[in-house]
Structure formats: C-alpha cells, structure tokens
C-alpha cells in the first residue's frame, strides 16, 4: 500500500483527479462522463505519439521529428485521397504508415550506423520533413471538400458510443504495453537506455534497439499523420507545428526519464491525459488560451523537479545496507 502511494503513476492519477475536481467547481459539466470521453478522444493522437516517443527516450534518444513526420505523412495521404478518391481507405492509411516508418528508419539509421546524436539527427530531419511538405504541396492547402467522406469520417465512427480515434489509441496502448513488457526487443530497449555499456557487454546491440525505437516512432507518426488530417479535415504545411514539444512533455510528466531506461506505458498515458485535460479545461473555465502555454510549461518544470527528486538517491550506499539488514 505504501508502495502504491509512492508510485509515480498513482500520484499523477491523483493529481489529474484533483484537477478535475477543481475544474468541476467552476464548470460541473466538464466532468460529465460524455465530456470526459471526449477529452480522452481529443487526447488520442497525443497519447499515441507520446508512447512512440517513450520508446525512443527509453533508449537514451529523442525524436524531435515526430510532428514534422505527422505533417508530411498527413499531407501525402491527403493528396493521395484528393487525387485518387476511389482508392480504398486502408490502402491510403497503409501508404501513410509505410512512409512514416521509412522516415523513422532514416532517423534510426543515422543514429545507429553513423553514431550521430539523436537530437542532432532529428533536429535536422524535423526541418527536412517539413520542408518536403512545402515542396510537394507548393504551400497549398488540401481542404475538407477535396477529401472523401470515408477519409474524414471513418475515425469518427462510433462503436458503443466510442469514437474510432479513441479505439485506435486504446489498441496502440495495448500493443505498446505488450511490446515493452512481453517482447525481448522491448526489454532490450530498457536495458540499453539504462546502461548502454552493460547492455553492450551483455550482447545487446544498443544501436539496433535505438533503430527500432525510431522505426516504431516513425510508424506511429505515420498513422497519426492520417488521424490528424482526418480529425481537422485540412492539410497544410504547418500542421502539428511544435507538437513534438507537447509529446516530449507528456513523456516527461509521465515519469519517463530523459536519461533513458525508465518509463512505463501507464505513466506515459497519464502524462498525455494530464496535458489533454489542461488543454481542454482552460478554455472551459474561462482562462485565456495565452495562459495555456505558461501553465503547461510550469507543469513540465514541476514534473521534472519531482522526477529528479524521486530519482535522487540520497545516502544510497549507507541506507541500502539499512534496508537490506531489515529485509
């Protein structure tokens, strides 16, 4: 029980509940089940991208190109759809996912085979990918009337009152959970991020785990490229501009260590939901959107402080003996 209370995920969940209670004082409608569901639905893309980012961060890397990947794959699927409206939707989505995967592989190969720091690689590809959006679209928009109905409406289809966006994100959560907990590669990502040297001596190819983290990140970004365009029914150069920061923030708030090796699916999802609640609640309770960024920013800083305090090991060597003696 004491462990559960000290648990990061429990604490974060408690903070989210507390926040909801406070919001309810100003606007009780906010915590109506239907609204909470729509807050979750709104957060779906952030959740998926945060989980993808978590894998990358676990391996001591960072993927700043996710939002640009979303914009590029989004533009490509939108253009395919508007040019060839008769093409079946699964094929269009598959094109986005394959393209996103390739973009992620490019990042991963540069990190793995050339040994370039991830932050440098993805800072570069972030600009390159977004530049390509401009090149292929000539800076023009693809508007909703150019898209097919299936393209726009499919993710909105409700099953038992739950929108496709939410269902997809739940499936991804399950998939990533199984991957991190049950797949050798997932375990190796934790090991590689936790101690690259020890992982190397254990026979794990650290660069390879990083490559696959980037690949998965790209794949999910490709999926989100379609979801994003479908959600907002418009594709243009500045889609998801700066969204990578929200994604990284969700990870950090969720307790994913930026130093690698530490992070859970649940924490990461809660981190994304936390930002989702803030983003959706502030306008509802009458706080200017200009405050949103400041509040999100403060929360990130507080989360980082909380994380570093939690990870700090005061008197580790001495106290460890004490607990061992007791145990």
């Amino acid at each position, binding site marked *: 029980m004491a462990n559960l209370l000290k648990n990061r995920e429990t604490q974060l969940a408690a903070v989210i509940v507390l926040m909801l209670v406070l919001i309810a004082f100003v606007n009780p409608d906010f915590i109506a089940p239907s609204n909470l569901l729509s807050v979750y639905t709104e957060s779906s893309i952030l959740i998926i991208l945060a989980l993808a980012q978590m894998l990358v961060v676990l391996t001591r890397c960072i993927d700043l190109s996710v939002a640009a990947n979303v914009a590029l794959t989004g533009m490509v699927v939108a253009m395919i759809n508007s040019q060839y409206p008769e093409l079946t939707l699964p094929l269009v989505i598959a094109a986005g996912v394959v393209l996103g995967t390739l973009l992620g592989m490019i990042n991963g190969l540069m990190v793995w085979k050339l040994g370039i720091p991830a932050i440098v690689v993805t800072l570069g590809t972030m600009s390159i990918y977004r530049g390509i959006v401009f090149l292929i679209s000539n800076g023009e928009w693809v508007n909703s009337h150019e898209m097919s109905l299936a393209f726009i409406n499919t993710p909105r289809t409700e099953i038992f009152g739950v929108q496709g966006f939410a269902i997809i994100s739940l499936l991804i959560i399950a998939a990533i959970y199984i991957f991190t907990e049950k797949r050798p590669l997932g375990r190796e990502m934790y090991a590689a991020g936790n*101690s690259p040297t*020890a992982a*190397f001596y*254990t026979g794990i190819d650290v660069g390879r785990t990083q490559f696959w983290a980037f690949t998965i990140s790209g794949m999910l970004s490709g999926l989100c490229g379609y979801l994003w365009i479908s959600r907002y029914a418009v594709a243009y150069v500045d889609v998801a501009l700066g969204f990578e920061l929200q994604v990284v923030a969700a990870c950090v708030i969720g307790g994913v260590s930026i130093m690698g090796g530490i992070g859970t699916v649940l924490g990461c999802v809660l981190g994304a939901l936390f930002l989702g609640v803030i983003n959706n609640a502030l306008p509802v309770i009458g706080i200017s959107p200009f405050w949103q960024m400041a509040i999100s920013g403060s929360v990130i800083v507080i989360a980082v402080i909380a994380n570093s305090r939690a990870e700090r090991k005061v008197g580790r060597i001495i106290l460890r003996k004490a607990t061992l003696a007791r145990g």
Partner: protein
Amino acid sequence: MHQPTPLLELRGISKTFPGVKALDNVQLSLYPGRVTALIGENGAGKSTLVKTMTGIYQADAGDILFDGCRVHLSSPEDARALGVTAIHQETVLFDELSVTENIFAGHYLKKPKTGALDWKRMHERAREILLDIEAPIDPKTRLKQLSIGQRHMVAIARALSFDARVVILDEPTAALSHHEIEELYEIVERLKAQGCAIMFISHKFDEIFRIADYFTVFRDGQYIGQGGIEEVSEEELVRMMVGRTVDQVFPKSEVDVGAVVLSVKNLSHPTEFDNISFDLRRGEILGFYGLVGAGRTELMQALFGVSKQITGEVRLKGKLLKVSSPAEAISEGIVYVPEERQAQGTILELPIFQNIGLPQLSTINSSGILSTKAEYEVADRYATRLRVKAPTWHEKVENLSGGNQQKVVIAKWLATKPEVIILDEPTKGIDIGSKAAVHEFMSELVQEGLAVIMVSSELPEVMGMSDRIVVMHEGLSVAELNRADFSAEAIVSAATGGGH
C-alpha cells in the same frame, strides 16, 4: 644521509569501509626536499592513504602532523590550504578548457576591487609556472590539443599553482613516454630543490631506485617497513610487498584437467598487446597476473569480441573463431564478467531475474513472448546456486551489495551454459564473505568441466586459485608458470619487468 624532521607525518592511521579494513594503523613520514616511495601491491591501501592525505577521506583513527602540528583535513580545500597536492594516474582535467583555466579551475585569481576574474594575471602566472617546469606550452591552448605527456605537465603545473609543499605523485609515469619520464624526473629534482616533500607511488623498481630517497612498504592495508632506498635491494622490497604472515586459505579443488578448449595463437592488437599465445583446458583455472595497464583486460575483451582489429588465431574446441561482437562470443560459448561491475556488468534498474535472463531472452522465451515465469525459473536456479542474498529475485540489482551484484553477473553468464568463462578481477572491491563465495564457486565450475580464465591483480588470489598463471607486462606475455612452480617473487618480478 641525515634525517630532517618530517614535513608531513601520519601516525596510526586507520580507515575502514563496510566490510574492508583499507588502512590498519599505518604510518608514513615525508621529509622536505626528499622523495619517499610508497610501495605496495594493488589493494595495499596506497590510494586510500592518498585520499586521506588530500582530505577526500577522513581517517577513523590516527594523527596527521604538518610541520609538527596536528592538523585535521576535513576537506580537499583544507589539504590544499596546507599545500598538500596530488597528481593522479588519470588526472582529471577539462578537455575543452584552456591550459590556464585548467590550472586555475577552482582557485581563480580575481581582481581585488571588482572580484572579476583576472585572466591576464592568470595567463601570466600559468606561463611562469609552465616555464618553471620547462614545459613550453601556450597557456591559451585548449587542453584537448595537447599530448598525454603535455597534459601531465599541465596537471603538475596545476599542483604547483597551489604553492605546493607536499606533492604526491600517484603512478605518474604510467602514461608517459621515455622522454617525458626523463622530464618528470627533472621536475621532481626541481621540486626537491625547492624543499617540497614528495611522495612517489610506483610499481616500477627502476624508477623507485632512481629518484626515491626513502621507501615505505604497505601490504594489505598495513605498514610493513621503511628505510633509506640505498640500504635496500629489489629482492628485499619484493619480499616485503608479497611476504605473508598468515596465508589465506583458498578452496582450490583437485580437478582432472581435460582437453584443450580454447587455443589462442599469436593474438596481437596494434596498441594494446602483442603475440599472445596460450591454451586453456577443461577443468582448468588459468590466471592472468600483471600490473594495471599490462593489457590483460584488453586481451580478454578481444576474446569477447569487444576489441576489433586484432590479428592471430583463436580456436574453440578446434574450431576457428572470428567474433566481432559480444553477442557472437556469447553464442559461441565465451562469456566475460567485466571488471567494472556497476558500469558494465548489470542493468541496475532491472530486477535480478530480468538481469539474469537478459543475454538469452529469445532462448528462454522461445515463443517470442516474454514469460515472467520462465525467466524467473532460470533466474531462481542460478541465483540460488550462487547464493545471491536478496528477499526475492524481483529486487532491483541496484539494491544489492557489491558482492551480490557480482554473483548476479556470474549467474547471468552461467545461465547461458558457456564453455569458457572469463572473470576480470572477480573479487575486486567486494567483501570477504562474497569473495570466498566467488572462489568456492569457481572451484565448482571447473569441477563441472568449465574452463575458467581469471584476471586478477591480487597475488594471493591468483596464486591460490589458478592451475597456471600467465604473467603479462606492457602488453607481452612474459612468463607462464605451472602451479608447482608458483612463487610470489618470480611472479611479481616478471610483472614489474624484472628478470629478463
């Protein structure tokens, strides 16, 4: 030789770490204008003493006298204020900063009124000091542009910038070329002329006899003896270093040595080791002894696929091996327990059972889906066998003591059912109880037909546990001794470059 009063004197110093008595009632005197060599094997307590003298550690008992007055060194600043300064084997310097910044880091010269950093004065002073030790280095150069020898000169200049009165040189020549060593000797002469008291730590007898005036010998954290260097011979020093009053008992078992498992021929590396050949048989413990930096670890890492660009031949059960990564070595049946447990051995954040399963996740979980049950069973079998002390195997490795962490590393490799297990300093820094457990376990392993290579810098351990010993010196294999011919003197003499 007349004996002046000591500038720095240590009396009855003791220092205990959990499970280890690093220094036991030791004494040491350093005289102004004289060089005292501190001699002892690895683990004799030299480094602990240096840290005590420079205020990094505080002694549990004993007195430190400076100029005849009792002093208390509660921090490195205290030691610096007295002018006690140490130059370490691997001096910590800042690559990206200038020479001046390196020399004055932490004690910058400031302008008296504004408190602003006085770079002009620091550059001038740095130039003066460097000229003083005849190291014509531009103080504005960035450190990373300098050679190792020049960096060493910068480290010495840094020590001198504190108005040093006691200078501790901790194996200063290990990384220096012949020419640079000569320069170092001249600096030592100059420091002597200035009246500094110098402590010189070295494993090389030719150096000791060349520049020391006095010697002090430690063994196993105890003071053994001291005297003038002219009154002692190399043989006597070696005997003082290795001679043991109480012989430790090692659980060495009689095992019938079988066929050759690993055969290494003319293995060479461009910079680390050259022309190494040896055979390893089933049921045998082959010890590798040598000084730190003799190339033993590099050799083992080459066998494990860490080092590239090696030439020569490695055969495992007659089959020619070409391993280029640890993963390949592991799949061939060669495993390596590295020296740096914390950095290289285990993933501290992961629980014990996951650490043990890590090298063979796909083998244990043949379906491709990790099964906690399967992993736990494997871990249980081996962790129990190694008597890892932990409440459950779900405990994170970081919560274990050093000895138990080491057992987890060995358990991890045993679980892969290897042919050859290489143990690099297997008992370094672990408590006596765990040490004995690791030794016992090594005996069990060879009884089961494994072949063991043990790299160790502890003479009693290497003599107590090995069936044969290969002695390495400066990247070469200089002696190979069978158990019947073991003699501490012969081994140490070969390792220090004597006897040939």
